[in-house]
């Protein structure tokens, strides 16, 4: 495989989106160096539990914890990250209003709240880490983001992308049915460009790829317009997530087979490979010896005549 620039180091968000893109495209991840990928993620975790984005250095916050959790989920291996310290960092980022900021002390925000909820859910720790009271406060904050569409913080304007960030958080929390679907849909559609298509953050603004994707996902959460269902934790379609699940099942089978083979070897008190190897050597020797002796016998016998 061709290498990219040798003076660029990887970026955790690109690792996440790269793997997600491969799954969306139906790839079997055979060409991904999973071990290297996970080691790379491991190297980005800081003592406080958060992650930086690249080895050379960057800010560290909730976004990159989310990326790390997604990579581990997609590669079906959480051993590379310290879940306890990551959970600790997430909980330290809980604010006075019940939602999550980017880090301890930071103001609560729809984006970081999504990253926190999804990370906890992916680690299987959402309901065991947050108390019922904390969950209720979080639900209240999230559902309060809806005016028509959703905003990312109180007293900010509605923005298309929060129909996904907050919508998906509500899905994860199990209260998405409390959303006013009509108002949400109307807002997202109002940001659609009627000439070139695509969605923008606000009405009458140029559309862009990010808000187009988020707008589509925001509508997909409501199962509207015949859109494919979207998985709220990994932020990929259900179809892609099922493909990932199939891969995980295949990997599990392959692992079990490998373990069984290794158990057979150690059980028979000598490697079956060694015995096979010895047999092969014996056969080769016999053939070699035969190829010398047999012509000599013929020569000796027939030369007498």
């Amino acid at each position: 495989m061709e290498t990219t620039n040798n003076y660029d180091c990887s970026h955790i968000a690109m690792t996440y989106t790269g793997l997600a893109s491969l799954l969306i495209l139906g790839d079997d991840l055979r060409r991904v160096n999973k071990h290297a990928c996970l080691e790379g993620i491991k190297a980005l975790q800081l003592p406080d539990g958060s992650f930086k984005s690249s080895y050379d250095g960057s800010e560290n916050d909730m976004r990159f914890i989310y990326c790390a959790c997604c990579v581990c989920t997609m590669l079906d291996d959480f051993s590379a990250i310290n879940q306890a310290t990551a959970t600790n960092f997430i909980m330290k980022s809980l604010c006075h209003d019940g939602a999550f900021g980017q880090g301890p002390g930071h103001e609560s925000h729809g984006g970081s709240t999504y990253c926190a909820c999804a990370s906890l859910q992916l680690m299987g720790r959402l309901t065991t880490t947050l108390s019922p009271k904390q969950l209720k406060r979080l639900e209240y904050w999230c559902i309060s983001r809806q005016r028509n569409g959703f905003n990312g913080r109180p007293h900010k304007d509605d923005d298309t992308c929060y129909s996904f960030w907050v919508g998906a958080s509500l899905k994860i929390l199990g209260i998405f049915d409390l959303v006013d679907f009509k108002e949400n849909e109307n807002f997202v559609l109002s940001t659609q460009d009627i000439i070139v298509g695509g969605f923008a953050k606000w009405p009458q603004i140029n559309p862009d790829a990010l808000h187009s994707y988020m707008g589509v996902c925001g509508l997909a959460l409501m199962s509207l317009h015949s859109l494919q269902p979207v998985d709220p934790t990994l932020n990929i379609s259900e179809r892609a997530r099922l493909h990932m699940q199939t891969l995980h099942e295949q990997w599990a089978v392959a692992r079990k087979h490998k373990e069984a083979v290794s158990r057979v070897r150690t059980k028979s008190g000598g490697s079956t490979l060694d015995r096979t190897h010895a047999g092969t050597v014996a056969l080769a020797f016999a053939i070699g010896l035969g190829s010398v002796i047999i012509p000599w016998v013929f020569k000796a016998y027939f030369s007498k005549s």
Partner: protein
Amino acid sequence: MHGRLKVKTTAEQAEEKRKHREKKLKLFQGAKAAAFKKITAKEYDREGLHITQEILTANSDYYTIWNYRKNTFLHYKSTKSTEELLESFQAELSFIQNCLKNNPKSYSCWNHRCFVLLTMPEPDWKKELQLCNLFLQYDERNFHCWDYRRFVVQHSAVLPGDEINFTHKLIENNFSNYSSWHHRSKLLPIQCPDLNDPNRIGEKMLLEELELVQNAFFTDPNDQSAWFYHRWLLGRGETKQSITCLHVSKPDSRLTCTLRKRVSLAQCSSMKVYVNGQQQNVTWTGVDDQKYQHACIASLLKSNSLWDTTRCQLSLHPR
């Protein structure tokens, strides 16, 4: 471009725009190639700073290029005199400020500024606070700026009390300044902790805050900031722990205890059980897998003399 209002142009204007963009792109790509030559060769010098400055002026989110500048300054730290170093860092701070004027929400810019402040000799934290004041004037909800302000406060000698006064001024100007209320929520427990419990706020301060927030929502009942803050304040009051119910089941040899405040299982283990004056060896379990529980259960030995008597005394001693 993201966030720009659509504007109609003539075909001529469009063509001019296209040519201008192409020229800009060529310059940018040229600078990028030159910068990566420097990065590969690990050449950290003035020329490198000049090239990367051009790139970052056009695109201040280019973190790889910011990291080159970071490495250059780290190199300078081991090669230049303190005077030269200070001059270079001051110039860097001016440059970052210009980038921030165009892109006040750039993670990379604010992060690089943190690096400069932590690396330079004699950082001027007062000046940084003034920078925060300036950027909060542009946008009082810019959380990058608020986060940077918290970073400055943490590293400098700014007292929590002074910061609380600062938020007070902002709140008085605009009750709906959610970010100010949030900042206040982080400072109060530091400034006025309850002497008995550092997670709580002292009674006097609590009552003053309640008055402030009530003024806020009387002024504007639709303002969410005040209501969220009010709810948080109510939770800062002290609740005394007590046993609300203790149930003894003889057939099951089981004690069930419900408490007013949730406890963790670790805290439960400090609860001692005495039957007729004799301490019992019990293990408390929760009712589900939640970390904090309102109720906990303990099993008692079946052979316990408790079961032979019709009257017994149970005392629970929580720590």
